[in-house]
């Protein structure tokens, strides 16, 4: 982010801390893609992810005065989002009869359609971009769902959202060593999972099974 953009963000945060919703909404517009995408990858369901994202931004606005200027705002936002997503995941695990259908990988009805429509739209936008097949995207999503929650969050924040180890440590309130270990274990498990479905992987990907 350029210097003027960070300065702009700092001002928007300061205005939000004085209760200015419109200023906060500017921040929402900047970060909603990041937040929604992270929450969706953690939960695997579009509808639930939308609800959790909305709740996360509302909580963030309520708690904005606790944000320390100078630290990473996106890490702070994602901390709220991932906490809410994890709470939701655990709640569903505890009461499987209520809404497990929503989150089980096998019959998540919204995800495939959404991912399918996504591929075409992306191809139209940028035909040169390497686009993963719909099946492969679903496979990766299923692989993520197999990971323990802490590893899943760390891998998503690192490899999908592109946060630094420091930011992930801030977002998950863990030490750098813990973050490093969670990312490594998560990646390793995901590699094993994907290597069981070699037929779906592109020819260039040759995952060795360890």
């Amino acid at each position, binding site marked *: 982010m350029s210097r003027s953009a960070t300065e702009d963000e700092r001002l928007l945060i300061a205005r939000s801390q004085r209760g200015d919703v419109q200023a*906060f909404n500017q921040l929402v517009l900047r970060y*909603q893609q990041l937040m929604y995408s992270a929450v*969706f*990858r953690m939960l695997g369901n579009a*509808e639930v992810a939308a609800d959790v994202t909305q709740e996360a*931004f509302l909580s963030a606005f309520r708690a904005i*005065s606790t944000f320390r200027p100078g630290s990473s705002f996106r890490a702070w936002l994602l901390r709220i989002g991932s906490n809410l997503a994890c709470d939701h995941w655990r709640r569903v695990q505890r009461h499987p009869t209520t809404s497990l259908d929503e989150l089980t990988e096998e019959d998540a009805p919204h995800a495939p359609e959404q991912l399918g429509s996504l591929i075409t*739209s992306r191809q139209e936008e940028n035909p040169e971009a390497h686009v993963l097949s719909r099946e492969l995207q679903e496979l990766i999503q299923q692989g993520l769902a197999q990971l323990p929650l802490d590893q899943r969050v760390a891998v998503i924040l690192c490899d999908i959202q592109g946060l630094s180890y420091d930011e992930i440590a801030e977002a998950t309130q863990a030490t750098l060593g813990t973050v490093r270990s969670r990312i*490594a274990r998560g990646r390793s498990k995901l590699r094993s999972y994907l290597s069981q479905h070699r037929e779906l*992987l592109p020819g260039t990907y040759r995952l060795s099974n360890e």
Partner: protein
Amino acid sequence: MTHDTRHLTTEELSAYLDGELTSPEQDEAERHIQSCEDCRQSLESLRQTVALLHDLPPLPLPRSFTLPVEEGSTVTPVSKHKRHLPGPLRRSLRLISGLAAVIGIFFLLSGFLTFTQQHNSVMLSSGERPASQSDSSQSAEANTPQPVTTNNKPTTPSLKKTQETTHPPQTQEPAPGFSLLSFLNLNTPGIRLGVGILLAILGGMGVTLFKPRTRGSP
């Protein structure tokens, strides 16, 4: 060379991929990877896993998540008010309010009881025993100088009070000055009733106001 033959752990390979090893570690890992086919393959497969995650396309947003302006304006003041009262403070304030309410109810009850008791005794003394009443007033008058000379402060008001509360049917004098003085006197049942009601109401309000929060903010 024994150091070079030790295979790198997945954690080391993963951190190496992100450039998160210290620079001597990074150099050492690089040397090892160049000489070790196993670690090179492992690193490559890890790199490909990361590449797959990286290649996931951004998801289309189902809607915008901006907050409604009018909702936001109601959200902030409430949250600010709550933030000034963290959990432990809320709990202790609630406890104090509860105690105040209990003390208030205690005052209320004791004030009510003594009020009815005194009312009965006044009825009795004025109606049935005029002779003994005059006796007691005389003895009370005889007693009054004693506390003054001994300078015993705590007993003076109580003695005056017993003297005066037994008097009303016969003498008119204590009315205005006495009520002013006894405004802060908790020994008077009426005042005790009033203070009791006040404490009970304030305590009850405090208990409901400082209810523990059900939802924690992050």
